[in-house]
C-alpha cells in the first residue's frame, strides 16, 4: 500500500462506498478520495475525477445544491456530461471560468483541484465552513485533508497549549489552531493556490457573504414570507439525493419548522430521528420523550427514537476519535448516536437545524448581549449587584468586570478567566487574556461599532458556528458515513437573516422572532411557544452515575491531562464520591485528556 493509499484509508469511515488515488505531475501531486455516494451511485461518479480533457483533476467533499441549474446552463453552452454528479459540473465550470466559478456555487464543499497545464494546485472551502478542511505545510510540500488525523500521519506533531486552554473555556478551540502546532484549519471561504514549489498564495475568490454586523439604519427588515420562501427553496435543494434522507428532530423551533417544510417539499418519506432521554436530571433541562414524540406525530412523521445508554467515558472516547479535536459539546454526543442509528436504518443523508440560532439570535447570550453590551454603565451596576447576590449570578459579575471589548467573547465562555486558576496549574491559569482570546479578538475587532447583539452574533457566526457546531456535526455524522446537511445555512437564507434589525430578531425578550412567526404561519403548533431546547444528553446524570470511572480517568497518574489540572482540584476529585465540578467542565477535562492521549498514541 502506498503512503497516499494509507493516508486515504484513514478516512474510510467518511466514504464507505468507494476509494481511489491518483498521482499526477510525475508523482509530485497525489490526490486521494473516499466516496460516500449520494448522487449518481454508479461507478462513473468515482473520484479523483478529471475533466474530459484530463487536464483538471479534483478530489472533492460535499454537495453543490444548485448543480442541476448550473449543468443546464453549461449544456445550453454546448457542454456534455458523462455523469449525473455535481463533481463533473465543478470541473466543467472550472475549465470555463477558473476559480471565479466559486461565486456561482451554492452548497457545502471542500476540494483540492490540480491543473496539469500550469502545475498549480488549488484548494477551497465553502464560505460558511460547513465542510472541514485541514492543511499542513511540510518541508517538501503541502498536504490537505478532511480530517486532522490524516495529516498527523505525515510526521511528528506537538500540542498547542493555548488551543487547549481555549477549548477548556469555550468547549471548543476557535480559529485556525485546534490543538496541533503543525496542522491548521483552512478558514471558511479560504481559497488558495499551491505553486509547484509548494508556495501557498491566498486568492480573493468565492461568494461574498453579507455583512453580519447588522443592516443599515435605512434597511427595512425582510417580510417573513421572504425568509419562508428562502427556507423552502433551501429545503427543496437539501432534499436532493439518490439515497434515503433523515431529519434530526429535537421538537424545538428550528427542527419543527424544518420538519414542516420537509413534509411539504419532500416527494419521498423522510424519517425523523429524535434523541430522547428518560434518565435526565432536572438540571439537564431536556425534553421528556413524550413531548418530542407528540410534536413529531403532529407533523405526521414516523420517528426513530435514539436513547442514550451506557456510560459517559467510552462515548467521550468515541467522540474525540470522531472529531479529532478537543471539542466538548454535549450535543455532539447526541448527534453521534443519531448518526449511528441513521446509518443502521439506511439513511445516509441527515438534515439538521444547525445555524438558525447563530443567524436569528437564538442563544440566551444574545438576549444578554442585546440588553447589556451597549449599556456599559448598566452592565457594571448589574455586575456589582450580581456579585453581591453570588451563586450562579456570579458569572455575570465575572464577565462584566473585564474590559468591554472582551464581553462578547466572555458571553461564549463556559469557564470564565477568573475561574481558570481553580482548574489549571498556576503557570497555565496565568495566561493573559490577550493570548487566550487572540483568534476571537481578530473576529470581534471586525464588528467594532456594531450593536451589542450584532457583535455577539458576528462572533458566533464566525467562530462558534464553523469551529464548534458545524465541525462536530460533520465529523460525528461522517464517522458513520452519514452526510449532515444544514438547510438554514445557504447563502440566500443567511443573506435574508442578515437584514433583520435587532428589534425584529428579539421580541419580548425572546430571540428568533422571525422563525416563531414562520412557525405560527406554517401551523407548527407549540414549537413557537416552547422554551429553547436543543439536542443534548443528560450530562448531569451521566457524570453523577459514572463518577467512579471519571474520577479514575482524570486522576490516573499516566493520564496526559494531569499536567494541566490544578493539583488541588485533582485532590478534591480524588477525595469525593460525588461530582464536585460543573458537569460541562468535567466533560471538557475528559475530552482534553482523551485528545492528548489520542495524540500521543496516534
Amino acid at each position, binding site marked *: 500500500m502506498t503512503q497516499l493509499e494509507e493516508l486515504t484509508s484513514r478516512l474510510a469511515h467518511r466514504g464507505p462506498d468507494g476509494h481511489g488515488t491518483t498521482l499526477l505531475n510525475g508523482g509530485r501531486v497525489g490526490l486521494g478520495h473516499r466516496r460516500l455516494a449520494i448522487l449518481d451511485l454508479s461507478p462513473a461518479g468515482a473520484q479523483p475525477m478529471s475533466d474530459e480533457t484530463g487536464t483538471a483533476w479534483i478530489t472533492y467533499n460535499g454537495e453543490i445544491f444548485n448543480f442541476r441549474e448550473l449543468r443546464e446552463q453549461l449544456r445550453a453552452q454546448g457542454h456534455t456530461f458523462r455523469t449525473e454528479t455535481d463533481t463533473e459540473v465543478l470541473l466543467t465550470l472550472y475549465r470555463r471560468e477558473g476559480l*471565479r466559478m466559486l*461565486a456561482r456555487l451554492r452548497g457545502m464543499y471542500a476540494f483540492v483541484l490540480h491543473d496539469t497545464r500550469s502545475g498549480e494546485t488549488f484548494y477551497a472551502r465553502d464560505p460558511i465552513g460547513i465542510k472541514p478542511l485541514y492543511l499542513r505545510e511540510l518541508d517538501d510540500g503541502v498536504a490537505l485533508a478532511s480530517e486532522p488525523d490524516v495529516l498527523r500521519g505525515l510526521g511528528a506533531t506537538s500540542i498547542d497549549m493555548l488551543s487547549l486552554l481555549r477549548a477548556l473555556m469555550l468547549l471548543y478551540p476557535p480559529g485556525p489552531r485546534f490543538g496541533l502546532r503543525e496542522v491548521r484549519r483552512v478558514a471558511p471561504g479560504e481559497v488558495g493556490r499551491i505553486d509547484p514549489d509548494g508556495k501557498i498564495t491566498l486568492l*480573493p*475568490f468565492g*461568494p*461574498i*457573504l*453579507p*455583512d453580519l454586523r447588522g443592516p*443599515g*439604519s*435605512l*434597511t*427595512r427588515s425582510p417580510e417573513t414570507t421572504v425568509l419562508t420562501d428562502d427556507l423552502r427553496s433551501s429545503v427543496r435543494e437539501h432534499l436532493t439525493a439518490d439515497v434515503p434522507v433523515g431529519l434530526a428532530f429535537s421538537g424545538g423551533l428550528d427542527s419543527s419548522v424544518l420538519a414542516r417544510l420537509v413534509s411539504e417539499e419532500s416527494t419521498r418519506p423522510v424519517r425523523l430521528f429524535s434523541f430522547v432521554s428518560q434518565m435526565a436530571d432536572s438540571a439537564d433541562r431536556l425534553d421528556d420523550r413524550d413531548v418530542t414524540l407528540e410534536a413529531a406525530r403532529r407533523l405526521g412523521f414516523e420517528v426513530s427514537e435514539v436513547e442514550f445508554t451506557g456510560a459517559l467515558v467510552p462515548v467521550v472516547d468515541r467522540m474525540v476519535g470522531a472529531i479529532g479535536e478537543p471539542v466538548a459539546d454535549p450535543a455532539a454526543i447526541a448527534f453521534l448516536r443519531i448518526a449511528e442509528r441513521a446509518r443502521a436504518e439506511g439513511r445516509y443523508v441527515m438534515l439538521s437545524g444547525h445555524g438558525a440560532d447563530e443567524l436569528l439570535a437564538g442563544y440566551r447570550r444574545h438576549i444578554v448581549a442585546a440588553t447589556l453590551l451597549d449599556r456599559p454603565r448598566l452592565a457594571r451596576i448589574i455586575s456589582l449587584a450580581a456579585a453581591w447576590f453570588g451563586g450562579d449570578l456570579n458569572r455575570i459579575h465575572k464577565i462584566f468586570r473585564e474590559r468591554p471589548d472582551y464581553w462578547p467573547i466572555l458571553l461564549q465562555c463556559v469557564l470564565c478567566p477568573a475561574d481558570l486558576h481553580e482548574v489549571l496549574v498556576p503557570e497555565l491559569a496565568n495566561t493573559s487574556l490577550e493570548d487566550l482570546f487572540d483568534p476571537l479578538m481578530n473576529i470581534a475587532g*471586525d464588528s*467594532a*461599532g*456594531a450593536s451589542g447583539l450584532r457583535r455577539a452574533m458576528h462572533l458566533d457566526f464566525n467562530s462558534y458556528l464553523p469551529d464548534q457546531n458545524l465541525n462536530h456535526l460533520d465529523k460525528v455524522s461522517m464517522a458513520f458515513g452519514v452526510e449532515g446537511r444544514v438547510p438554514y445555512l445557504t447563502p440566500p437564507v443567511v*443573506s435574508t437573516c*442578515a*437584514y433583520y434589525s435587532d428589534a425584529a430578531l428579539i421580541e419580548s425578550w425572546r430571540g428568533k422572532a422571525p422563525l416563531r412567526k414562520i412557525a405560527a404561519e406554517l401551523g407548527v403548533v407549540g414549537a413557537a411557544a416552547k422554551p429553547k431546547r436543543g439536542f443534548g444528553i443528560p450530562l448531569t446524570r451521566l457524570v453523577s452515575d459514572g463518577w467512579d470511572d471519571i474520577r479514575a480517568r482524570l486522576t490516573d497518574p499516566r493520564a496526559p491531562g494531569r499536567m494541566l489540572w490544578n493539583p488541588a482540584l485533582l485532590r478534591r476529585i480524588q477525595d469525593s464520591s460525588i461530582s464536585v465540578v460543573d458537569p460541562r467542565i468535567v466533560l471538557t477535562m475528559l475530552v482534553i485528556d482523551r485528545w492528548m492521549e489520542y495524540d500521543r498514541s496516534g
Partner: protein
Amino acid sequence: MTDQGVDVIPVALRGDPRRLRERLRAWGIATQAAELLSFRQARVWRSLLWFAARHPVAFTMQVAWLVRDNILSPLHLVKSAFVLLKAPALLALVIQRRVDVVHVFWGHYPSFVAPIVKIGAPACRLSIFLGAYSVRRSIPSQRRLLAYADCLTTHYEGHVDDIRNLRLRTETPIAVIRRGVDLARASKIRGLSHAGPQFEERLGVVCTLAPYKSVDHALRAFKLVSQRRPFLELHIVGDGPERAALENLARTLGIVDRVRFLGRLGHADTLEAIAGFKVLMLTSLSEFYPNTLKEAMALGIPCVAYAVPGIVEMAAGGHGIRLARPGRIEEIAQRIAELLEDPAHVTQTVSAADRQIHEFDIQASAAKLTALFQSLTVDGLPSAHLVATK
C-alpha cells in the same frame, strides 16, 4: 434644442447666478441668453406691482394657496414666496419676447409660476416635466399646477400611469422623453487616458448624500470587496445632509483611509471623475433612469446597481448594468468583485451598455421635445421662443 434652431431662454428664479452661468458655459450655451431674475432688479418689483394691480384676485388666491400649502413648513413658505414674487417678471418676459412655450421642471417652487403665466398670457403653451420626485411627493400645489399644463413629459414609462392618476385634465398628452446624456462629449472624455498609479483601483459613487440614496449600502459593499482588493479605493462624488454620518460609518467600518469624499463637483469634473473609476455603483433603492448611470454607461464604465424599476429597464436585460436584488449589499459587492476580477465581465457589460445608451442620446431627446413643442404651437417651431425654468 438650440442646435435644432429653437430659441431657448433659460430662466433662473432662484439660486446662485454665477453657478448657473458656469453650468450654461459648461454646456456650451450662450450665457447672455439666460435670464437670472433677482430682487435687485427693478423689473422684478415693477412686474410684481403690475400683476398685483391687474389681477388682484388671482394674485391673492396664489398667496392664499402658498400659505395654505406650506403652513407647516416655514422654510418652504419663505422659499416659495420668493419664487411667487418673481413669477410676474417671468410673465413680463413671456409677453415681451413672445414666448410660445414655457417648459417647467416640476418641483415645489415652479408650482407658483405656471398659474401666473397662464393667467397673464393664456396663449402661451405650458409644458411640465415630472420626475420621480414629483410623482412620489404629489404636493397639493403641484397637483394644482397640472390643471394648467398643455402637455406633460416624463422620462420613465413607469410614471405614466401614476401621472394619469394625478392629473386633473384627462385630455392632456403625456410624452415619455428620456433625460439624455451628451454622447459626443462622453466619447471625447472616454478616449482620454486617466492619470493615477497603475495599481490603484477606484470604485465610484456619484449622488447626493441624502438618506434616500442609501449610500451607507455603498460603504458596506465597499467594505466587503475591499477585504479582497488591497489597492481598491472608494471615491464618493457629491454632498448632502448625510455626509457627516457617512464619514462616521466609514470610520466605524475601518475603511476611512480608503474612502475619499470629494464633495460636489462641476459637471465636467464629475464626468472626469467617473471616467477614472473601474466600476460605478449606485445603491439607491428608489431611482428612475438616474443620470449618473447613463453618464457612466456613455463613458464606458461598468455599473452596478440594485434592480429597482427604471434601472432594470436601463440594464437591458441585466447586461448593460450588473444588478443586485434590492437591499442585498453582498450581491452588490459580489457584482463589483466579478467586474474587478474578470475583464470578460467588463467587456460584456460595457458592450451591452454601448448598445443600450443610444436610447438616451441627448440629441434624440431634444428632437423629441422639439417635435412635441411644435405640435403645441399653431405656427410650429423653430421660429418660436421657449422659456425653461427650474
